[in-house]
């Protein structure tokens, strides 16, 4: 049943994206590890980490597109799920440090020793085991999304109101994680990681493996999204986006559909966060900042809402531009550029980069599987 579900998603375009992602996942680390540093095709380690970060952002963007592009749920708090996944991974990495910390305490992470804590808080139990942490990467964001969605969708909170409470959610988490008493390292977050699964986290080979893992996670995420969209479930999602009350009147309980897709999307964001943390080497409450979530929405809008490929392209393009801008003299103007980009895309490329391209090619083929998503709205009024 499950294999049939995934197989149905494998049209030609999906194959191309999957193969491309696997190829990139293998090629970039290979060009880093097996070429001479002086060679022109050599990829420096910092670039591997940077591109790996882009891939995790792309997975986050994909998760936003699944709910926004196909179901009209504009979450401006998806960074929260990303950050929670990141914290779950960060906790595992902290416990891996063991006695090698500054205070050499075999169980307590440094910041707890610093705060004079004597025992590990109960919610840190189990995070010394990778499988448990990996499970929590899915469970914690999924559970939050479930509780949040249960109340929000049942009360039929939609459109701008939903967007606002998702912002409130991530902001509340931001404030909570800033507190030292929360037990997640407060302001400084979790950092100084040493090992992952016993391998040195700084080693080139580990970085290569993390890059490959990010590419594979993105490929898997893409496949799952394609399968969801290709199923009748996906058609119901688009129906909800286009005419929610009509969907109810033909007998679909809309809140159930929204809840399932919202939880799935949150889990994907969690995985993205978990792969992000070992590659950047730190997770702190700043990841909960509302601006981060809004940026993710901009990636989707730029790349093309409701296309699945668009958000991947958008995330990479915008972040490439960001890296380029913020390392030069123009660093101060980056936010203006980002804002300008969003305005320009909304006005001139309402379907995004990919949406415009695919839309032109397939315009005369109705029902070709890519529903024409309504243009990215200047206001989040879906």
């Amino acid at each position, binding site marked *: 049943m499950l294999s049939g579900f995934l197989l149905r998603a494998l049209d030609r375009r999906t194959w191309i994206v999957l193969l491309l992602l696997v190829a990139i996942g293998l090629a970039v680390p290979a060009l880093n590890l097996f070429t001479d540093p002086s060679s022109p095709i050599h990829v420096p380690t910092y670039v591997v980490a940077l591109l790996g970060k882009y891939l995790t952002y792309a997975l986050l963007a994909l998760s936003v597109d699944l709910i926004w592009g196909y179901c009209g749920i504009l979450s401006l708090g998806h960074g929260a799920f990303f950050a929670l996944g990141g914290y779950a991974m960060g906790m595992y990495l902290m416990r891996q440090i063991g006695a090698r910390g500054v205070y050499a305490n075999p169980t307590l992470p440094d910041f707890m020793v610093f705060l004079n804590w004597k025992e590990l808080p109960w919610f840190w139990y189990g995070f010394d085991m990778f499988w448990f942490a990996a499970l929590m990467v899915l469970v914690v964001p999924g559970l939050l999304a479930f509780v949040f969605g249960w109340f929000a969708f049942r009360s039929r909170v939609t459109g701008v109101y939903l967007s606002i409470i998702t912002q409130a959610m991530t902001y509340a988490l931001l404030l909570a994680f800033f507190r030292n008493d929360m037990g997640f390292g407060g302001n400084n977050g979790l950092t100084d990681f040493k090992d992952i699964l016993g391998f040195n986290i700084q080693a080139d080979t580990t970085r290569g493996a993390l890059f490959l893992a990010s590419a594979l996670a993105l490929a898997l995420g893409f496949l799952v999204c394609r399968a969801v969209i290709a199923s*009748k479930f996906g058609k119901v999602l688009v129906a909800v986006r286009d005419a929610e009350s*009509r969907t109810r*009147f033909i007998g679909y309980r809309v809140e*159930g559909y929204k809840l399932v897709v919202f939880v799935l999307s949150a889990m994907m964001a969690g995985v993205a966060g978990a792969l992000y943390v070992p590659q950047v080497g730190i997770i702190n409450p700043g990841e909960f900042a509302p601006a981060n979530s809004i940026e993710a929405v901009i990636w989707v809008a730029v790349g093309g809402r409701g296309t699945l490929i668009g958000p991947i392209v958008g995330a990479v393009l915008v972040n490439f531009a960001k890296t380029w801008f913020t390392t030069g003299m123009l660093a101060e103007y980056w936010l203006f550029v980002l804002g300008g980009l969003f305005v320009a895309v909304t006005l001139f490329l309402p379907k995004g980069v990919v949406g415009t391209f695919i839309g032109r090619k397939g315009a005369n083929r109705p029902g070709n599987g890519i529903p024409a998503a309504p243009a990215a709205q200047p206001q989040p009024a879906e």
Partner: protein
Amino acid sequence: MNEKAKNSLLYLDGVSVSFDGFKALNALSLVIEPGEMRAIIGPNGAGKTTMMDVITGKTKPDEGDVYFSGSVDLRRMDEASIASLGIGRKFQKPTVFESHSVWDNLELALAGPRGPFAMLFHKRTRAEEERIEAILTTIRLGEKRDWLAANLSHGQKQWLEIGMLLAQEPKLLLVDEPAAGMTDAETAETAILLKEIAKTKSVVVVEHDMTFVRDLDVKVTVLHEGSVLSEGTLDHVSADPRVVEVYLGR
């Protein structure tokens, strides 16, 4: 519950709804028999749409009884479960899923399981395909099955929506102004289509267009200020002096 309620398909008794003090429905009572077709007319603000909202679970009545099939209390149910019971609704403005094809629109409406997980793994069966084919023929959109619904004309959208209602296999159809915005020829065809449907199902039609109501040739209920003003044949209600006063605006 009385005898009348038990034998009815739809039974509304003393239903009142108010919005911020405005009484949209005022002790409305209405009985639809199984297999009956009924036309409902009334001036703007008479409560026609609110009545549909109450029946389909969108609005909860402040007081009064709403029963379906004699015993099912509709006040306790949400839109989705009422739809699954067999009450279909067509909106005033044609509401179809614009970015889906005509075929997908019908497939979504097709009677069957409605749960999210069932839909994830759903595979279309031969029987379902035949059913969709049959409906496409009825609503005369067979040629346009692959068209996006957004590209249909206004009249075709109305028919598609009626087709979606048929796909739901409802026992009762609520149809809100099916002839609005149609050409005369389309209006006449719509009347024929609805009469065809009414052979097997109960239908409640809300309509402004008098010619259309005359074409339907069924029992008419006149609503005014949220309650029933008059009921009977079109000739009977047209002759009613109260109806003449409020509806025909004399």
